């Protein structure tokens, strides 16, 4: 056969298989009210017939583009276009499927939508990774994607979707919980950096301290998050009762305080380990020269060691931030707030749309944080140290 296997893109094959299955799976789910199981609607029955046919045709073309070895830039823009088509399609499906004047019925994306979305998101990120855009361009693309999603949200295109209905009935608490989620994730990161970097510096200088700290933090890291949140209730209630002024600061056995402390404890290991690793990776030559030219230990630390270790330390910040954004969800279990509130409420009410209202922003924040910090890590590293920094990522 002329059209041999070498014309087929391997990642594209995976994407095509997922997408092909997605096209046959239910595109949207219709439910009479928010807690009953949904009935699936295939692509052609979920949309007005002309629009359905167009979306199907575009999808088939996009799958073929994914499958063949074509210029990466073409694949990238095809997958972006396909994601836009999906966004528009699910929006119009929600208004098409919704019976007139019915406020109880719900329309939500079906497995077909998610599979198609995942397939083309995979194609887009694969294309992007292989195109190797500069860090600044990646940040710009992230901003553009965020802007595009924001404008879809404000346009009301998705207003008929169940997740947006859950949002509109909780708009106030949504933003309060978003604020708490960010406070937990970023606040614990900031404190962990303030404590972890000096600990890492001491650990780098004194071998014994290093092994004690790292072993201790390794043990902390193995405690399952729910247990750690629970373990902290006891000591923090004691502090609240016995330390004057602690209760006024909001320190209680349950609520934000134990969640904050738990996230802080989880953040310490990556911060300390990456600081130690970064400092250990400073070239011996540079250290020797720094001493040889007459720098004091403090000058050597500030002028040579920390700047050279900075990309690795920033990698630690990236690990912590992404980890914290995810873990902060658990805080809701002990009354700490955050997006977890919607996830656990939703689980309790078997209302999956409410679960998604908590989960989707959490995932989006984690992805955005990862992209942003990866770009910053690359920007921070001088060209010759960049390769080392990437190889030297310290994991728990």
């Amino acid at each position, binding site marked *: 056969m002329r059209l041999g296997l070498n014309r087929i893109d391997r990642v594209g094959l995976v994407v095509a298989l997922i997408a092909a299955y997605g096209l046959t799976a239910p595109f949207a789910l219709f439910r009479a009210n928010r807690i009953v199981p949904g009935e699936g609607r295939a692509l052609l029955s979920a949309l007005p017939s002309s629009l359905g046919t167009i979306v199907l045709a575009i999808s088939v073309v996009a799958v073929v583009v994914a499958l063949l070895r074509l210029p990466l830039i073409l694949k990238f823009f095809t997958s972006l276009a396909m994601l836009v088509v999906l966004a528009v399609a699910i929006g119009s499906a929600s208004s098409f499927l919704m019976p007139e004047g019915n406020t109880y019925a719900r329309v939500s994306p079906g497995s077909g939508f998610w599979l198609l979305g995942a397939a083309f998101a995979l194609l887009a990120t694969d294309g992007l990774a292989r195109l190797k855009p500069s860090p600044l361009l990646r940040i710009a693309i992230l901003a553009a994607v965020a802007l595009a999603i924001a404008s879809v949200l404000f346009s009301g295109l998705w207003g008929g979707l169940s997740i947006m209905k859950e949002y509109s009935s909780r708009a106030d608490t949504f933003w309060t919980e978003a604020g708490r989620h960010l406070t937990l994730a970023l606040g614990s990161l900031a404190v962990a950096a303030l404590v972890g970097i000096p600990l890492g510096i001491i650990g780098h200088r004194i071998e014994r301290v290093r092994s004690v700290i790292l072993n201790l933090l390794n043990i902390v890291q193995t405690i399952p998050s729910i247990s750690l949140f629970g373990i902290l209730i006891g000591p923090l209630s004691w502090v609240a009762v016995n330390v004057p002024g602690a209760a006024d600061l909001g320190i209680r056995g349950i609520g934000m305080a134990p969640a904050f402390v738990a996230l802080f404890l989880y953040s310490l290991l990556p911060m300390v380990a990456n600081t130690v690793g970064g400092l250990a990776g400073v070239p011996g030559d540079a250290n*020797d020269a720094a001493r040889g030219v007459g720098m004091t230990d403090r000058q050597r630390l500030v002028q040579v060691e920390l700047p050279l270790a900075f990309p690795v330390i920033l990698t630690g910040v990236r690990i912590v931030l992404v980890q914290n954004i995810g873990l902060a969800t658990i805080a809701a279990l002990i009354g700490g707030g955050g997006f977890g509130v919607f996830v656990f409420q939703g689980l309790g009410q078997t209302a999956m749309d409410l679960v998604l209202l908590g989960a989707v922003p959490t995932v989006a924040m984690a992805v955005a944080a990862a992209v942003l910090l990866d770009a910053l890590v690359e920007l921070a590293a001088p060209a010759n140290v960049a390769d080392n920094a990437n190889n030297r990522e310290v994991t728990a």
Partner: protein
Amino acid sequence: MIEIDGISKVYGQVTVVDNVSMTIETGSIATIVGTSGSGKTTLLRMINRLVEPSQGNIRIDGEDTAAIPPHELRRRIGYVIQGHGLFPHRTVAENIATVPKLLGWPQDRIKTRVEELLALFQLDPAEFGPRFPHELSGGQSQRVGVARALAAEPNLLLMDEPFGALDPIIRAKAQTDLLAIQKHFGTTIILVTHDMEEAFGLGDKIAVMDGGRLLQYARPEDMLANPATDFVASLIGTAERPFRLLSLNRVETAVETGAAEGSPISGSISQREALAELLWSGRPSLPVMGGDGSVIGRVTVDGLLKHARPA
């Protein structure tokens, strides 16, 4: 004048440097040569107290180095290591400015000094000043390393195998440049090497170390004539002796009266190079020209051979 007086370094049971004494005259170059593990680098690092001596003391122009805080002492002494040790996150100009900045020189004086040094090392300040070390070749990095060591106008320069990472051609040029710079500033240099050729080529005096002990410290011609031990003799290499001796002196000191055929050679090259030229061209003699380009006489194979053994 640097006076090293009964200096020793002991790590646990191991004596790395054993009771070494030597004096280096101001404005001269002393090379310390030895095999790896001979203690030569430790000896060098005790001079700027990167290694603290276990015993003995070192005086620079009469001042005991133990009485000066180590970081202040090091700011007064230039220090060059193998593989240059430039700070990878700082530009060439920032690297060179390191010590003047530590000493708190005013900005404009630092800037002038950096440009002066870059020009001296044949690096265009506008082009190379803003570059980062990874954008330099090996030879350029090495020159910047020496420029950084000289930035605060030290009277003493310590060099630990400074040319070890360079290829032979760049290495020879770096050695010539170093001699010119040394002449220019009158800096006292102590240079550690494992290369006998380099030790002879650069040193006004050569110190040979083995097993932590100083075996001999002498002028090159004295060392060639009277090696103190068999080890020194073997390090010099018996087959190399006549050629080493010839390379110590310029051809102008071997000029005879008379005329010779062929294009004249410069009087400032070494006698070894002149002999090589004679042997290769198959002539018994060649005309020699002085600094002004006029012929001052001739060298002959027979005449040069007389210079190839100790007087």
